[in-house]
């Protein structure tokens, strides 16, 4: 039996943006709803736009913090159809969850035109639990935990143009539990983890002193969670080695910011997330499983997600030398076609509202707080519309996030 380091103690994950990507990884990014790519000025620059490190003052920057996540229940009213002749009432709600996400960023001194930095973050994750009813067969628990270590470097090509990039080291854990209970006497407990690698690139251009333009790209990383699965038919269980691959999709950001009077900054951000990489959820087992379980636990489940467009706007106001206020709004698009919505992630389009503030305690130290409200839109699935047999209305869900962070410059 393999053993894993208990990173879950310090790393949890949440659904705060389309599907299972988490774009907010610092006080400023949370307060601005991740409209924080062109105009970055703290240690979190290492994560959001490493090219911008080239333009930072000659000091070392650090930021550490914690985000508290509250995930309300997803509510479902409707029916579950296993076949045209087997349809059950299935109104239910998922578990409420409260999680914590840490982050840590660092930017070094410049070394002539070079600079380096690093971030420890949680770029994605998912946790959904249905403890009863038919949903339990599909997602008694579906947890994906992702932590990223991202060393980066920048190079200043001119006074107004810089490039950057880095390597992405991902550690991820997955837990999948399914239990048909008395309705369908089948059950699966799966745990796995993986280490994967990717890269990120960035480019910043500052045509004038008050306008920043940026392009960033984070590569797709396929998370091949490898571990064991206990499969049960009735009361009889057997353990199989298993793996399942879930993509952490590539993302392209285009951003521009404009600053007025050195006090007010508006940033517009467009993000394209390449979710179409997620074509199916396919569990593989080390040996043949009982054929009665193949349909539920072995046959690939089509996902066919689509690429998404997210539009963000963030506003920063330095109302005094000590106090900075921030607010943001994002319109987030779900990548999941209604045809393939499932209980493990009943995602919908969302409106995301954010605000926060940062207080400068002295010339080296500042701290801040930020709040994010993710409001998911309700949606309905008509009979025959969904491949997983879901007929009814999903509502609720979304998320509330509160971030606290402290920054130190020296």
């Amino acid at each position, binding site marked *: *039996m*393999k*053993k*894993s*380091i208990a*990173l879950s103690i310090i790393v949890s994950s949440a659904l705060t943006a389309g599907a299972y990507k988490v774009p907010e990884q610092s006080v400023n990014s949370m307060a601005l709803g991740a409209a924080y790519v062109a105009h970055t000025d703290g240690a979190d620059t290492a994560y959001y736009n490493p090219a911008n490190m080239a333009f930072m003052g000659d000091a*070392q920057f*650090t930021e*550490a913090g914690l985000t508290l996540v509250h995930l309300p229940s997803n509510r479902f009213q409707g029916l579950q159809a296993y076949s045209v002749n*087997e349809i059950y009432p299935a109104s239910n709600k998922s578990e409420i969850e409260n999680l914590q996400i840490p982050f*840590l960023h*660092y930017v070094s001194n410049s070394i002539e035109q070079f600079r380096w930095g*690093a971030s*420890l973050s949680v770029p994605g994750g998912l946790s959904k639990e249905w403890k009863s009813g038919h949903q339990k067969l599909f997602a008694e628990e579906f947890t994906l935990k992702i*932590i990223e*270590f991202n060393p980066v470097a920048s190079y200043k090509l001119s006074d107004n143009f810089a490039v950057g990039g880095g390597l992405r*080291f991902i*550690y991820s*854990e997955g837990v999948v539990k399914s239990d048909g209970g*008395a*309705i*369908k*006497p089948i059950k699966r*407990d*799966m*745990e*796995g*983890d993986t*280490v994967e690698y990717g890269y990120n690139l960035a480019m910043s251009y500052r045509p004038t002193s008050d306008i920043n333009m940026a392009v960033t790209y984070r590569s797709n990383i396929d998370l091949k969670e*490898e*571990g*064991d*699965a*206990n499969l*049960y*038919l*009735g*009361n*009889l*269980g*057997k*353990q199989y080695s298993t793996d399942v691959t879930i993509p952490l999709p590539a993302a392209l950001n285009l951003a521009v910011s404009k600053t007025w009077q050195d006090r007010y900054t508006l940033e517009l951000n467009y993000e394209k997330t390449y979710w179409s990489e997620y074509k199916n959820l396919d569990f593989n087992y080390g040996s043949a499983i*009982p*054929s*009665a*379980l193949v349909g539920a636990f072995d046959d690939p489940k089509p996902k066919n997600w689509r690429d998404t467009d997210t539009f963000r706007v963030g506003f920063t106001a330095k109302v005094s030398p000590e106090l900075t206020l921030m607010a943001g709004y994002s319109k987030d698009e779900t990548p999941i076609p209604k045809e393939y919505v499932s209980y493990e992630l009943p995602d919908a389009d969302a409106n995301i509202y954010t605000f926060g503030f940062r207080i400068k305690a002295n010339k080296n130290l500042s701290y801040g707080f930020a709040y994010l409200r993710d409001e998911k839109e309700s949606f309905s699935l008509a009979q025959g519309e969904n491949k997983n047999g879901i007929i009814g209305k999903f509502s609720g869900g979304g998320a509330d996030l509160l971030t606290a962070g402290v920054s*130190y410059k*020296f």
Partner: protein
Amino acid sequence: MQNILKLVVVATPLLFIGCGSDLSAPTSESVKGGELLVDFSDDAMKSTLLSKGVIDENQTVYGYKAYKIPYTTTDEEGNEVKASGLFVIPTGLPSIITTKLGLSMVSDDHGTIFANAEAPSVNAKNIGTPAGSSVILTSLGGFATLQPDYIGFGDSNSHYHPFILKDSLANSTVDFIKQVKKFAADNNITLNSQLFLTGYSEGGYASMATLKKIEEEDTGLSVTMAAPMAGPYALKTMADVVLSQPKLSVPSFMANVGYAYAKAYTQPVNSIINEPYASKLPTLFNGDLTRVEIDPKLTTDTTGKTGLFEPNFVNDYFANDNNWFKEAVTSNNLHTWSPKTPVRLVHCKGDNVIPYAISQLTEGTMKSLGASDVEIIPVEQTLIAINPSKYPADLNLTHGDCGSPAYSITTAMFAEVRKKTIGY
């Protein structure tokens, strides 16, 4: 600051150490002399059967636990063969039954199969769910069900299957019953002394062969009641009918008879079966293919140059009283004896493979030889009598459709006997 940097340095390697999972493997029941393959609780069985519309809410349903049991038997040639079978017990019964009264056994011989995957213990291992007649007998009837795979399937898959050959079919059943009794004793499963015999189609024939062996030989067993279902007991009559008809409804059945008898009686297969079919049979009957896959590779013409049976063989069969095949099927008849055990010949009048008349002939012959408790149970009439509003008066069930209701009627008959004698 240095502390923060240290944290990064320390945390980073930790990211890459974890691998796999710490998921504990499921614990399985320790079994002596077998392997637990299926274990469904009574609640799970009831939910499953309710969802399929097989039962109503008020029906009592028992859990289902199935074990594969290996054992040794003897083939047609007198050689020892390592064989296997499936033993299914009900769970969730009152403790007075499981500790004091004991479970009554039903030996249930399966019908004709060709693919090894269809054998009871192989099917249970591959699929992992309750399946087939043992659901009726065990989960609805509360019986301990015994299903030998037969020689040629399961652990003896490399051996040819002695299709419709009474000695080895009876051997594989009797030896399995004996092994199950030992298995039950070794694993604290309480059985009572009741033993019922049944089986459908080839299984009907096999159960009749088993009854005959138990009554005529010193097996140490006794049978409470036998209910063979739709079996070709009058084999010589069946052969006469089939070989005189121009077409074969299911060519794989007759090809299998020809193949098995040629093997058992050491005759060249191509002296019975025409080429190119004779050369194909070892491959067609190697356990990889199902009947549906085999039939299209054969012909439905009974004989002639392009027929299944070699014309000279067919001519000799009808003309020569000493024809070896005629003597073989005659010696494998199972209707020309007089059982002392109560026998219920369960059969559908609409049977299109094994004519109902075979059971009529069997009943008449056995009675004429002195059997006092042999009776035909016509399935359609029994169903109509139980529920006249559900079935039309002219109900006729084919061989394929008759199996499930035949098992239900047989289970009810056995349960009635158990109720009168054991008390539950």
